[in-house]
């Protein structure tokens, strides 16, 4: 037999098991898409759809008549208004179709037609009335100073990015661990591994280790994109952000382990995964604030691990919250992670 000593390097069992898991993941293009590309794509699309627009002038119509000229001139001085002269019929149609938000009549004392349920119409009424009163001789008692505030960090995309990061940590944590364990159980691989002289703590430890190694590029890619392409701020400590992400990933790995503890088939584990994840997609404030849910279900909403993770991520990223105010959220994550991990070990089906 030919000797090829040292041709193959053999590391320790934990390192080899972790490496095998990382190879499986990196050689699966679809998994890479869902883990890395999809969250960035989703952030980009939603960020674009809900981007903040510069304030636009409000379109208003002035009905033709002897007074239309001076009224148009008075309104045109206002930067917030975009007036136009129309016939009475044209103006009526423009209002009903939303092309203008207010119509000024041609009568000697002006009358306004507008929809008071539309904030823009109400704003236009105030601006138009003030402009016409001023043109008719009213003198302002004072001119108020105004400072314009549009702060990064209060946009929708700023709210969205921590939520998407949380959602991604949940999805990859649960699927990444659950799916591979059930496939291994289904194909007798888990049984074969148990029959080998390898510690069960190494088998499960490798799943966790590879998960945490993957966390770095996964969270890193989304955060770098959000920061440099969309200007999402990191107000808090990056170290704390990393620690919160790590704890979140561990908590969801524990849940993934629990969900995958018994099922023998992919269909079985998929059902349980959805059962666990769908409530969090809805209630955990990924796309909108959890404050919109009624007070009666708030205890349930706040107890969900993804709610805790999203709140903690938003606190660190958007408000620059320190460690101490986040302790309740971190405690929720730690409790979920610990309990599900212990239950999973207790009920795990190795064959």
């Amino acid at each position: 037999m030919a000797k090829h000593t040292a041709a193959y390097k053999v590391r320790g069992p934990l390192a080899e098991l972790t490496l095998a898991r990382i190879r499986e993941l990196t050689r699966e293009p679809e998994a890479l898409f869902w883990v890395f590309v999809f969250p960035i794509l989703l952030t980009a699309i939603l960020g674009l759809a809900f981007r903040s627009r510069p304030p636009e002038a409000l379109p208003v119509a002035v009905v033709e008549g002897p007074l239309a000229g001076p009224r148009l001139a008075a309104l045109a001085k206002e930067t917030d208004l975009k007036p136009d002269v129309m016939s009475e019929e044209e103006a009526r149609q423009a209002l009903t179709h939303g092309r203008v938000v207010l119509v000024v009549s041609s009568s000697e004392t002006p009358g306004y037609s507008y929809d008071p349920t539309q904030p823009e119409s109400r704003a236009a009424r105030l601006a138009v009335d003030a402009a016409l009163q001023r043109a008719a001789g009213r003198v302002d008692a004072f001119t108020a100073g105004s400072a314009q505030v549009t702060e990064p960090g209060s946009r929708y995309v700023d709210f969205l990015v921590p939520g998407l990061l949380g959602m991604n940590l949940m999805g990859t944590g649960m699927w990444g661990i659950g799916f591979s364990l059930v496939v291994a159980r289904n194909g007798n691989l888990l049984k074969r591994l148990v029959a080998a002289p390898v510690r069960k703590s190494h088998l499960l430890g490798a799943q966790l280790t590879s998960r945490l190694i993957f966390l770095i590029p996964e969270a890193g890619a989304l955060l770098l994109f959000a920061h440099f392409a969309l200007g999402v701020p990191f107000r808090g400590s990056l170290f704390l952000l990393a620690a919160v992400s790590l704890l979140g990933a561990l908590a969801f790995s524990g849940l993934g382990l629990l969900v995958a503890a018994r099922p023998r088939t992919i269909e079985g584990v998929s059902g349980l995964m959805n059962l666990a994840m769908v409530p969090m997609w809805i209630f955990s404030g990924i796309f909108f604030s959890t404050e919109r849910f009624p007070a009666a279900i708030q205890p349930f909403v706040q107890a969900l691990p993804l709610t805790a993770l999203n709140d903690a991520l938003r606190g660190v990223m958007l408000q620059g919250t320190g460690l101490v105010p986040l302790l309740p959220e971190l405690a929720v994550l730690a409790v979920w992670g610990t309990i599900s991990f212990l239950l999973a070990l207790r009920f795990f089906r190795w064959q």
Partner: protein
Amino acid sequence: MPNPESALRCKDLIKRYGDTVAVAGLDLEVWRGECLGMLGPNGAGKTTTVEIFEGLRVPDSGLVEVLGELWHGNGLALRARLGIQLQETKFSDKLQVSEVVILFRSFYPSGLDVADVLALVGLEEKAGAHVRTLSGGQKQRLSLACALVGDPEVLFLDEPTTGLDPQARHQTWEIVEGLKARGRTVLLTTHYMEEAARLCDRVAVVDYGKVIALGTPRELIASLGAEHVIEFSVGEQPEAAGLHSLLSALPSVEGVAHDGVHWRLTVREVHRAVPALLAALAERGAEPMHLATHHATLEDVFMNLTGRRLRDG
């Protein structure tokens, strides 16, 4: 007392799954350095017995000794001395052949060189191939490589050639024969009598969770008392009981079996039995059909013991 010559030993082994008794008081002893085959139909309790030896299942009762030790705790030290091939293991499709073997090598404190094991099972050309691209026979040899890489004292092979084509089966047999030549202890289960006859020093015939015969293939066949088998059926069925006693009385016939359609005679000498058989049938006006003779095999041993064919079960 543990016998130093005994690699595996079980006594009064019982294992139930619900109402089904998989192993019903099975006794077996495998000597160091021998290849013992458990031969029996599907569902006979072979796999359950092997998995109890492998420490994967706990028996309801009975004694189990592996290399003179009992299973307790995680059994890691004992596992390091065993090589195991399960009936079917799906290794990760995305890994390369060498990566799978390296992974298993990392579990053992000492063992064989990965390249040597790949050469041993004839997969050195496939070392860099992904598991997904392997044929059924190659996957089975990969599984064998993982069982061998820890240089085990005892090797368990559970139906190593089931589902393989004849060429892949012969390749596997050659590998196992190579291992036997190196003095390994092998416990093999199979429902192919040809496999048992070729590979095993001793064969334990297993049925309904018990060993019903044990010996070398030669001894088991000799226990039939005759080396040949004549099989036939008759066109119009004469009264069976009368025919049975008539056939038993024919010269050189040692045994007669009838399954309702076919007759099986175990005979010492074909050239004496066949003319007498033809004459006796002609005398009763019965025409023999599908008359065939062959050397007695382990299949005939099984049929003699159980009245059933191995593959039926």
